[in-house]
């Protein structure tokens, strides 16, 4: 499809058109009345419209969290579904304020693509899914396989690196749209489907004709820390997104949930008082309401709630916390202190 090219061309135009538009993103967003958020067009658990047309998913919830931090309303956000190829031009050009679309943090993206990454919202890794009938037990047995992969992702590079490192050959079928990649795999065009393990789980749960026919191989071949991103050049906006993500993690560390948040407002703990805005200062420093963290937790939930609601064991994706558990529980989720 040409949409990637169109987006890139549009980006070129918009980059030129927004000449001198150095206005603070926060002011622009407030004036407009909503946050424009770039999300995945259809990845169950991360960014996906439900049967009623409401956007759901972990990435989507972080868009809502930022909207709550600014407007105290999780619905003051509009979503732009983006393909892997459209996403960078869209954020670079200012078409979206925030890119929350299962995007892996890498050095190139942080530098030459011109992005700033908020804290990681999901620690992922790339894996392989195969049909059980093939009898494959390990990715090391995949020499000569045909692999379906979406274009324009770090997945494509990891795939090449992994097969190179293990002296194996493969035959890539590279397609732009995620739906077409999945269709090609389930039709039997490829032996293997590769993407992030969370994505494989989502596809198996949501797209596979018979989910039990497919098995995700044990090898995880890459580090895929997925994080929301903003463009370079607006530190205040970057801080807001960063400390909104941190707030959800910090809340889980404190044991504050959307249900019990109000009980903590009068807590004696000075850390919690600062965090919830009972003792003022932190919200103002960000240019937000003093109670922004409290609002985020009440309206969207803490990290654990967001995880469980979208991708946890109770959802079709059935993902364990694993690396995404709090640091106190052997995971990697850790918030810098609120002070």
């Amino acid at each position: 499809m040409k949409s990637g090219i169109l987006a890139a061309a549009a980006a070129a135009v918009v980059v030129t058109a927004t000449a001198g538009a150095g206005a603070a993103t926060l002011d622009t967003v407030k004036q407009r009345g909503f946050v424009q958020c770039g999300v995945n067009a259809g990845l169950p658990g991360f960014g996906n419209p439900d049967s009623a047309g409401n956007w759901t998913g972990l990435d989507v919830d972080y868009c809502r969290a930022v909207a709550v931090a600014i407007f105290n309303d999780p619905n003051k956000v509009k979503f732009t579904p983006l393909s892997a190829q459209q996403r960078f031009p869209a954020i670079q050009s200012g078409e979206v304020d925030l890119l929350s679309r299962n995007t892996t943090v890498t050095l190139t993206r942080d530098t030459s693509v011109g992005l700033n990454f908020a804290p990681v919202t999901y620690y992922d890794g790339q894996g392989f899914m195969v049909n059980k009938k093939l009898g494959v037990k390990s990715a090391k047995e995949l020499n000569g396989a045909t692999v379906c992969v979406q274009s324009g992702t770090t997945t494509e590079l990891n795939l090449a690196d992994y097969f190179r490192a293990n002296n194996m050959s493969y035959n890539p079928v590279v397609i732009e749209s995620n739906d077409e990649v999945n269709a090609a795999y389930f039709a039997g065009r490829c032996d293997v489907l590769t993407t992030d393990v969370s994505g494989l789980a989502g596809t198996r749960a949501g797209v596979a004709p018979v989910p039990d026919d497919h098995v995700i191989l044990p090898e995880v071949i890459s580090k895929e820390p997925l994080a929301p991103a903003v463009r370079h050049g607006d530190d205040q906006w970057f801080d807001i997104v960063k400390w909104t993500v941190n707030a959800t993690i910090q809340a889980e560390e404190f044991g504050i949930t959307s249900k019990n948040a109000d009980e903590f407002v009068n807590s004696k703990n000075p850390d919690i008082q600062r965090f919830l805005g009972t003792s003022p200062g932190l919200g103002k420093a960000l240019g937000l309401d003093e109670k922004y963290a409290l609002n985020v937790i009440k309206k969207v939930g803490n990290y654990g709630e967001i995880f469980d609601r979208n991708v946890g064991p109770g959802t079709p994706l059935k993902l364990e916390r694993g690396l995404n558990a709090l640091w106190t529980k052997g995971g990697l989720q850790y918030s810098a202190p609120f002070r």
Partner: protein
Amino acid sequence: MATETRTTQGAPAPGGVSFSLSDPTVRAVVYQILVVGAVVLVGWFLISNTLDNLARRSIATGYHFLEREASFGIGESMIDYSPKDSYGRAFLVGVLNTLKVSIIGIILATILGTLVGVARLSSNWLIAKLASTFVEIVRNVPPLLQLFFWYALVSDSLPPVRNALNPLPGVFLSQRGLWVPSLSASPVWATMGIAFAVAVILTIFLNRWAKDRQARTGQIFPTARAALGLLIGLPLIAYVAGGAPTALDMPRLAGFNFVGGMALSPEFFAILTGLTVYTSAFIAEVVRSGIVAVNWGQTEAARALGLPSGPTLRLVILPQALRVIVPPLTSQYLNLTKNSSLALAIGYPDLVSIANTTLNQTGQAIEGVTMIMGTYLTISLSISIFMNWYNKRIALVER
């Protein structure tokens, strides 16, 4: 002219030089300077603004990324390529893949389009109606849908690779494409290539000699049959003289896929068939209109002179029809080439697909898009230049 008229009308400028805006010559120059100035100014504004914005957001610019290692795989390539090669080489692979599908597509679409176009004019009711139904259906369905149709036809209707159809020994047809035996490497193939080249050169000389002889004596030499004999005969002699090797590289199932032999991928099949069929419907109409444009009286006149129907078509009808056919045919060739960028949707690694991956990995969208535009412009202009040259060659020389 205008100035002269003006001077004769009186009120000439002293010294003969006038900068009056009422002078049409001066006005023309002034307007042109203004327009060129405005275009340059807008261009400069856009470019400097873009560079400024890119720099402010510290987005990398320039084409240095072309030398860096690409580190992504490509499904099919006409030259050696591995992820260790540079982005530049990956792009070249894409350009070659685009050229491959465009050139083969143009040839096949021309053949199919001509057949259908002639069939529409057939006096046989069934053939004419079938041809017009084909044209109306094919040219009114968007090409992207047709590509999905051909791609789905392969992946949904053919058996999985392990139950591949095996209609002939060594020929396998499955969802993964078509495998046929290929000839094992042998020095004979090179000799045959040389023999063929010699035959082509001989044919050219034979053709000149035959024309010359016909002009002198009026005798017609059967050039076509002799040329065919040369083109097939000489390589055949080389083949037999080289010991007639028959070793074939047979495809066989090993691991996940067939190995050995030659393969036709479903992606290439889908893009080639889709483009060929879609464009052939337009070419059919172009051919039909070209033939209809030649007055029936021309045929009658040729018959009255005693020309058989073959030479009538070749010497009288076609030269006149081609005048009408070639210009619109050129735009169909250009369309086919540009439509090949739809390959991205079905996974054929054409230049857009590879440039897209590149611009995503490097984040340099503007550079990637300029490279795509530059390449298509070059290909399209080359086709235009060739077709214009051909059009001039076949144009009627009016005396």
